[in-house]
């Protein structure tokens, strides 16, 4: 009865034996996307249609975020013209909001790979519809993050001296500097992420090519690299993605470890900590998972992708976030406990500042947002509520941003020479640039949503093909076929 015949297409709904079974199957289907297949053209239409559907509201937000981006680049130009003095930077807080943004955006760039690659390697099936959005969060997060070291430079126009290239001066960049490790790690990670996202995009591009005409057809023809969907192509594609998935995970871990070394390698009290590597990675995944949830909820609503993005996906992300929140708590506790035990004077003064000084409100907000708010995710009601999840994720973004702020400018404010202590307050230019950076990430999403499918439909089909429902006794159970 519910036996699927091999020649039967996977989207065909099986014949229903009785009403109970019908209810059971309907229930399972509503919950699980992969068990709820439908005619592929319907799905393709759902994926492609939003590219054409540009409502007034879309253009309003498009203009808004384009404006933010314009504001960011204008401010940057003014800053280059007049000098970094227009920002609130000062002695001793030589690094401040720009570096906070850098670490933050690198951080949210971690979730994409984690969801897409790590969950793929671990064969977590629910990741399938959300992997594209996650990868794009990674790519856009990294692109924005990579801007900040440049914005932050005193002489941006000399940035190419950081790149090793043979020159008549016979000078190379210094590989002693963690900044250069950073540059290496980030460029590697960015190129890997772009390639990874692109490879997984290929079948969808081919799909789009086949459904479009005009300039879009040409664009997709070029980008699809002549994908035709032969057995060999699929097999190569699978292999490529597998290799990438395995290879990119250590890169991902290394990138934020190396970013943490920018701080941990310095002798600045409060930075000079051996736990920063794993602590930063966990923090990055934490904020990244939150960022992906925010992206998903918005995409789901705005692009009417309720069929693809279901509660099961958000709940899966929520569980992941809860786990990461506990991990973050653990590392933060460690990061505080060890210096506190050492009673080094500068670090002691830093903790006093956190506990009761001028940054105490920020500190307590961070603890609340990062350690207390995510605990609500133990309740299924919160995990399955889209609004609830959105709010929790937003809190996590705020909390993690504050965490970086407390490490970078506040940490720099207290040092070994009490005469040179200082308080950093962001001025208008860096605030505008920071707001613009958030705008840039969203703007890139807006832009890309007009050109590329945000749901990897091929991955969904693949999952749906492999999944089936099997009746064992009275129970209806999902089953999964392994490809060879």
């Amino acid at each position, binding site marked *: 009865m519910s036996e699927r015949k091999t020649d039967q297409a996977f989207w065909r709904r099986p014949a229903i034996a009785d009403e109970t079974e019908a209810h059971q199957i309907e229930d399972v289907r509503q919950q699980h996307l992969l068990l709820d297949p439908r005619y592929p053209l319907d799905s393709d239409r759902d994926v492609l249609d939003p590219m054409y559907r540009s409502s007034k509201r879309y253009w309003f937000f498009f203009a808004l975020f384009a404006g933010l981006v314009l504001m960011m680049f204008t401010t940057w130009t003014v800053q280059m013209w007049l000098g970094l003095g227009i920002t609130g930077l000062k002695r001793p807080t030589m690094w401040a909001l720009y570096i906070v943004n850098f670490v933050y955006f690198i951080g949210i760039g971690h979730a994409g790979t984690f969801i897409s690659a790590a969950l793929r390697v671990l064969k977590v099936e629910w990741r399938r519809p959300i992997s594209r959005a996650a990868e794009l969060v990674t790519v856009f997060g990294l692109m924005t993050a990579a801007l900040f070291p440049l914005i932050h430079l005193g002489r941006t126009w000399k940035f190419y001296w950081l790149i090793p290239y043979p*020159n*008549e*001066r*016979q000078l190379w960049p210094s590989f002693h500097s963690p900044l250069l490790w950073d540059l290496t790690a980030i460029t590697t990670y960015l190129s890997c992420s772009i390639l990874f996202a692109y490879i997984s995009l290929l079948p969808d591009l081919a799909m789009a090519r086949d459904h479009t005409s005009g300039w879009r057809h*040409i664009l997709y*023809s*070029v980008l699809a690299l002549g994908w035709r969907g032969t057995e060999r192509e699929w097999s190569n594609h699978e292999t490529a993605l597998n290799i990438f998935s395995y290879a990119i995970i250590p890169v991902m871990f290394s990138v934020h470890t190396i970013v943490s070394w920018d701080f941990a390698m310095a002798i600045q009290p409060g930075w000079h900590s051996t736990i920063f590597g794993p602590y930063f990675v966990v923090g990055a995944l934490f904020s990244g998972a939150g960022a992906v949830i925010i992206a998903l909820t918005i995409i789901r609503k705005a692009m009417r992708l309720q069929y693809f993005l279901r509660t099961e996906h958000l709940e899966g992300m929520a569980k992941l976030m809860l786990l990461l929140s506990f991990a973050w708590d653990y590392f933060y506790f460690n990061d505080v406990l060890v210096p506190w035990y050492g009673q080094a004077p500068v670090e002691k003064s830093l903790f006093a500042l956190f506990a009761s000084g001028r940054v105490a409100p920020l500190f307590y907000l961070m603890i609340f947002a990062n350690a207390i708010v995510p605990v609500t995710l133990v309740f299924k009601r919160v995990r399955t509520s889209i609004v609830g999840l959105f709010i929790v994720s937003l809190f996590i973004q705020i909390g993690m941003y504050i965490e970086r702020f407390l490490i970078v400018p506040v940490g720099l404010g207290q040092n070994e020479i009490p005469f040179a202590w200082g308080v950093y307050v962001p001025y208008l230019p860096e605030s505008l640039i920071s707001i613009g950076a958030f705008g840039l990430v969203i703007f890139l999403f807006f832009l890309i949503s007009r050109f590329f499918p945000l749901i990897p439909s091929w991955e969904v089909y693949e999952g749906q093909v492999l999944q089936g429902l099997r009746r064992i006794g009275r129970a209806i159970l999902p089953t999964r076929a392994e490809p060879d």
Partner: protein
Amino acid sequence: MRATMKSFRVRLIAFGIFVVVILLLAGGVFVVQAQAQATPQQPVPFPHVNMVQSGIPCLFCHADAIRSPTAGIPSVEKCMGCHKFIATNTPAIQKVADYYQRGQPIPWVRVNRLPRFVYFSHQVHVVAGALNCERCHGDVGRMTEFQPVARMTMGWCLNCHNAQPEADRLKDCVVCHR
């Protein structure tokens, strides 16, 4: 057939962009080079060749080169020291005499320029290094119009300094940048 045409067009566009970029880069390099190697117009035409052929050594006029970091431009008085008597009727010399009488310095235009953060000492190179002027300034003795022969860039300096016995010390940043 259509497919091939299309892909050909795509390739053509890509190639076109590539060629334009390369041309722009080459043009930029050429302009910079040309600017650096240009021979500036001097207020009074000064043929070094005449002086050198008359047997005047470089250090007669640029005497500071052995005593100071700067080689020095000779004073108008020094010019007039000889040209009160020699070739007094040429227009160029009359121009020099005019400057002298008005008590105005001749606004010579710098030919070999260094960036402002580079500190070069003629004294060390000429005295301790025992280099002759032609090594860097070219065969000035044959020039009717003084022109730069080398772009005096860091790489150009290093060309010699790499070959020195104490190359590492001579390549220390502080030797030239402070």
